[in-house]
C-alpha cells in the first residue's frame, strides 16, 4: 500500500469523513505501518488539544442587544412600508402591464382611435371655423392698413416693405390696387416702382389691374420699368398695350435698347 496516499486519510479518519471501505482499508494499513500510526497519534493529539483552546462565553448582553437591533430594524421597516398599500397596487398594476404585451397594444390602438374620433368631432364643429375666419379677416385688414400707411412713408425701403405686404394679401381690394397703381406711376424711386410692378402682376387677372398697367406704360420714364412692363405685357398677351408702346416709340429720347425691345414686344403681340 502507498503510504503517502494513506497519510492524506489521517485527517479524514480523525474527522470521521470516510466511507466504510476507505476506513477498513486505512485501518488495515495502520496495523502494518508504524510511521502512519505515529503520524496519526501526533495529529490526533494536536487536534484534541486544539479543542481545548479556550474561548470566552458569549456575553449575556448579546440577546439584549439583538432585541434592540431587531426593534430598530422593525421600526425602520414600518417607516418605509407605510406607503406600501399604494406601492403594492402600483407594482401589481405594473406587473400586469408587463405581463401582457397584447394589452399594451390594445390600449395603444384604443387611444389612437379615441384621438382620431375626438379630432374629427372637433373639426366638424363650425364654431371654431367661424372664429378662425373672423380672425384671419382681421389679420387681413390689418395687413392692408399697414401696407397703405407704409406706402406713404418717406423712406424708400419702408415703401418697398409696404409693397411686399401686398404679396401676402391674396384677394386685393380696390383700395389696395389703386394704391399700388399710384405708387407705380408716381413713386420717385425706381426700385419701389419695380417691386410694385412685380406685386401688381399677381393681380393681373383683375381687369382694373390690366387697364392700369397699360395706362402706366406711357407714364414710365425709367428704361428698367419700361422693359419690365414690356416683358409683362408679352407674358399676359395684352393686345391693348400695343397702342401705348407705339406712343412710347414716338418719344425721341427713348433708350435704344428699349426701343428694340419694345419693337420686338409689339411684333410678339400682333
Amino acid at each position: 500500500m502507498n503510504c503517502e496516499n494513506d497519510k492524506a486519510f489521517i485527517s479524514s479518519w480523525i474527522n470521521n469523513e470516510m466511507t466504510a471501505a476507505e476506513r477498513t482499508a486505512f485501518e488495515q494499513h495502520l496495523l502494518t505501518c508504524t510511521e502512519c500510526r505515529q503520524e496519526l497519534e501526533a495529529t490526533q493529539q494536536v487536534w484534541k488539544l486544539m479543542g481545548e483552546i479556550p474561548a470566552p462565553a458569549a456575553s449575556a448582553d448579546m440577546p439584549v442587544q439583538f432585541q434592540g437591533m431587531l426593534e430598530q430594524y422593525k421600526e425602520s421597516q414600518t417607516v418605509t412600508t407605510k406607503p406600501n398599500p399604494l406601492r403594492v397596487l402600483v407594482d401589481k398594476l405594473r406587473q400586469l402591464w408587463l405581463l401582457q404585451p397584447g394589452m399594451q397594444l390594445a390600449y395603444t390602438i384604443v387611444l389612437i382611435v379615441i384621438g382620431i374620433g375626438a379630432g374629427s368631432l372637433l373639426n366638424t364643429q363650425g364654431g371654431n371655423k367661424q372664429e378662425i375666419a373672423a380672425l384671419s379677416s382681421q389679420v387681413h385688414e390689418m395687413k392692408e392698413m399697414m401696407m397703405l400707411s407704409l406706402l406713404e412713408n418717406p423712406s424708400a425701403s419702408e415703401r418697398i416693405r409696404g409693397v411686399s405686404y401686398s404679396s401676402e394679401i391674396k384677394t386685393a381690394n380696390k383700395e389696395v390696387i389703386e394704391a399700388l397703381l399710384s405708387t407705380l406711376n408716381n413713386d420717385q424711386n425706381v426700385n419701389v416702382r419695380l417691386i410694385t410692378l412685380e406685386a401688381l402682376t399677381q393681380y393681373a387677372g383683375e381687369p382694373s389691374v390690366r387697364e392700369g398697367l397699360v395706362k402706366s406704360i406711357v407714364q414710365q420714364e425709367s428704361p428698367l420699368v419700361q422693359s419690365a412692363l414690356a416683358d409683362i405685357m408679352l407674358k399676359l398677351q395684352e393686345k391693348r398695350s400695343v397702342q401705348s408702346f407705339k406712343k412710347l416709340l414716338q418719344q425721341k429720347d427713348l433708350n435704344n435698347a428699349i426701343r428694340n425691345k419694345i419693337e420686338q414686344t409689339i411684333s410678339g403681340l400682333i
Partner: protein
Amino acid sequence: MNPLTDNAIMLKVKNGDLDKLGLLFERHHRSLFGFLFHMTGQRELSEDMAQNVFYRILKYKHAFRGDGEFKTWMYHLARNVINDNGRAVKRTVKHQEVTNLAEEIAGSYLADESIQKKQELALLKNAMNNLQPESREILILSKFQELKYHEIAAIMDITEGAVKVRVHRALHQLKNVYLQIAN
C-alpha cells in the same frame, strides 16, 4: 412537540414574522460568537460582528431560499462580515497573539488546569496564528463549529473534495508547526 427546523423558522422570518429570528439567535449566537472569536481573537469585536451577521440575515432575508441549511448561510454571511472588516482584523490578531496570550491562558477558564497544559495550549495557539488565514479558518470551522465537510463546502463555496484536501493540509501544517515550536 417537534421543534421547528432552522429553515422552517427562517422562512417564517422571510415572510415577515421578524420576531421568530429571536429563536434562531438563541440557537446559534454562541457558536457564531465562538467562530468569530477564534477568527479575530477579539471579544468585543466578535460580539459586534455577531450582531452584524444577524442584521444581515434580516436585511437579506429575501435571499434565503431554504434549499441550503440556515447554518451554512449564517456562516457564509459571517465570513463576509469578517472580510468586510478586512485586514485590520488580521493585523490585530498578529499583534495580539503574543501579548494577550499569557493573560488569556492564565485566565479564569483554565484555573484548574495544570501549568504544563497551559503552556501546551499557548504554543498551539501560537501555531494556529502562524497558519494562513484560510487554513486557520477551515480548521476552526471543522473543529470548533463541528461542521461536516459537506457543510464547510457549502459555506466556502468549494467542493467537498477540496475541503478534504485543505483540512488535511492545514492540520498537517499545524501539527508540524506545533511540534517545531514545542521542541
